[in-house]
């Protein structure tokens, strides 16, 4: 089981155990995310997908195991040492987590002001560019998060996550709560971010369409264990009843057919 670290592995998790109080969330979770791939975590509600994400981005401290990001162990890392690492990744939270007292443009600009020495004019332009990249209309920049629709808020959150051109992007439920049209817009966006900017993307999602269309590899989590890791096609051949139900249920089949048509 213990293989040597593949060179260039972006996220490498070994034998991870996490707990919330007495409830065990993960047991012996191991996985590796390769550079430039879109890696997705799937599983039923409460199976610990988001918790795993939180552990990787150092919002939660696991009980034991190891998490390496860009080759660096993040468990127990001091804030001072974590900063260079934090600048190399961007996080989009499930509900956006935009700062409600700042406009969308200010939300994005804040990251740039904090971490770069760019001039004010260039920052404003880069901010407008990021907002345009996520497909928001230009006038959305002057609005406050409370004035935006759910889909626009997700895009604004994405604009903030990519503000620093991170090498690694974490997306927590990027399409949850969106209409199909906006959701497929996000599909395209995720793909083009990877293709053009060369990002590595790790996401948590329930969205089968998004999975079929974008994910290179997928890990299925259930009750704190990993049931399987592989491409969607590989996973759909797995025999585990839960996985079968997930991929061959009516929704799973429809999404797969859609994806085939697209290809």
């Amino acid at each position: 089981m213990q293989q040597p670290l593949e060179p260039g592995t972006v996220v490498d998790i070994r034998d991870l155990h996490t707990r919330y109080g007495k409830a065990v969330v993960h047991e012996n979770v191991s996985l590796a995310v390769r550079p430039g791939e879109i890696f997705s975590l799937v599983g039923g509600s409460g199976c610990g997908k988001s918790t795993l994400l939180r552990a990787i981005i150092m919002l939660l401290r696991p009980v034991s195991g190891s998490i390496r990001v860009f080759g660096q162990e993040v468990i127990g890392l001091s804030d001072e040492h974590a900063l260079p690492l934090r600048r190399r990744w961007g996080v989009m939270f499930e509900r956006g987590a935009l700062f409600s007292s700042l406009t969308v443009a200010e939300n994005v600009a804040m990251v740039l002001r904090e971490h770069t020495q760019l001039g004010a004019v260039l920052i404003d332009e880069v901010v407008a560019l990021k907002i345009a990249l996520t497909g928001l209309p230009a006038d959305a920049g002057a609005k406050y998060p409370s004035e935006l629709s759910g889909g626009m808020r997700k895009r604004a959150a994405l604009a903030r996550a990519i503000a620093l051109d991170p090498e690694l992007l974490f997306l927590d439920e990027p399409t949850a709560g969106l209409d199909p049209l906006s959701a497929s817009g996000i599909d395209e966006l995720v793909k083009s971010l990877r293709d053009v900017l060369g990002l590595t993307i790790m996401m948590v999602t329930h969205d089968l369409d998004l999975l079929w269309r974008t994910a290179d590899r997928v890990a299925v989590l259930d009750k704190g264990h990993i049931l399987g890791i592989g491409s969607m096609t590989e996973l759909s051949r797995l025999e585990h009843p839960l996985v079968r139900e997930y991929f061959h249920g009516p929704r799973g089949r429809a999404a797969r057919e859609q994806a085939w048509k697209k290809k």
Partner: protein
Amino acid sequence: MALDRQTAVHLAGKTMAAMEIAQLEIETDTASVPTSVNVHCAGTWTVRGVAPIEQRLVALVSTDAGEYVFDASAISALDTAGAWLLHRTIHELKQRGADVRTSGLRPEFSSLLQLIASRAEMVEPVAPVKAGLLAGIGQQAWRGLLGFSGMLAFIGESAIALLRSLVQPRRIRWRPILHNLQTAGFEALPITGLLSFLMGVVIAYQGADQLRRFGANIFIADLVGLSMLRELSPLLTAIIIAGRSGSAYAAQIGTMKISEEIDALRTIGIVPQELLVQPKIIALVIALPLLTVYADVAGVLGGMLMANSMLDISYGVFLDRLEEALSLSSFLTGVIKAPVFAVIIALVGCFQGFQVSGSADSVGRQTTVSVVQSIFLVIVADALFSIIFNWLDL
């Protein structure tokens, strides 16, 4: 192809972060009026690297050569910020009629540049809108007016909800009332008692010196008793509760408003006023007079201790004098104010909570306003009471 940049960045690893910097070398031909400029771009053109060359590129645009050749072959990393800077420079040069050529850009970088160019039309930095002085005053006044009429409407709605509950006592929600009695009343006992006790001590301390000069030591009981019962303890208690519970009401209702819980209540068919406002008003109207009486006792106790230690007045003598000095009316004039203060505090706190809109900032602002406003109104009401009692010769 996208992987190239990724692995390049990754392999360079830690050294990369230290020397992430973009370089620029501008070569002008030797003619007195330069006609052709060679621009050699090198290094990491990334969001963290381009800061040093930003100004030089701006300066480059304002030169007036006819031809610019960008040699981008030595750019080792390019991200959206770097690509934007390159695109902007080239675009601005072209716009003023210069001939611009780019060479040596890696294929993955040029596809990024194309993406940026395709989105460039949508890029317009937002300028914050600033209102003039006069417009600012107007907006402020209008907001004030709206706030006032909103407050009146709120008082009206609360009164109607209260009347409805009185007609149909089944509608009264006892559990929240009890809960509020516990949090706003019972849990405030220690702080109210302590502050009131200290207030009694301070008054006796200040008064003792003056009274001793006139040999009127015994009147310390009048001083402490009357000032605490009539004025200080109702006022002090109200101010403590305004800071303690009024702010909590505003913050609670405000946060519920932001997370759409208030809307959820409406759709379930519960009037928010009935569930959130009324129990608070009722509980505070019960709790504040009780707290005031408690503060009376604590204040007088403080004065009595002080009288004993500074003026050698024994507890028995003090209490005898207190009985003579105080009438029922001096007790009642104090306690009767408390329910009025309670209504003011609960109404202002809840109203400001409902005024919250949108942001976390707004919760903080309205909470502050609720405390300032309710303390202000409590003191105004106290002054009005003084005038009325004066007319009535109480």
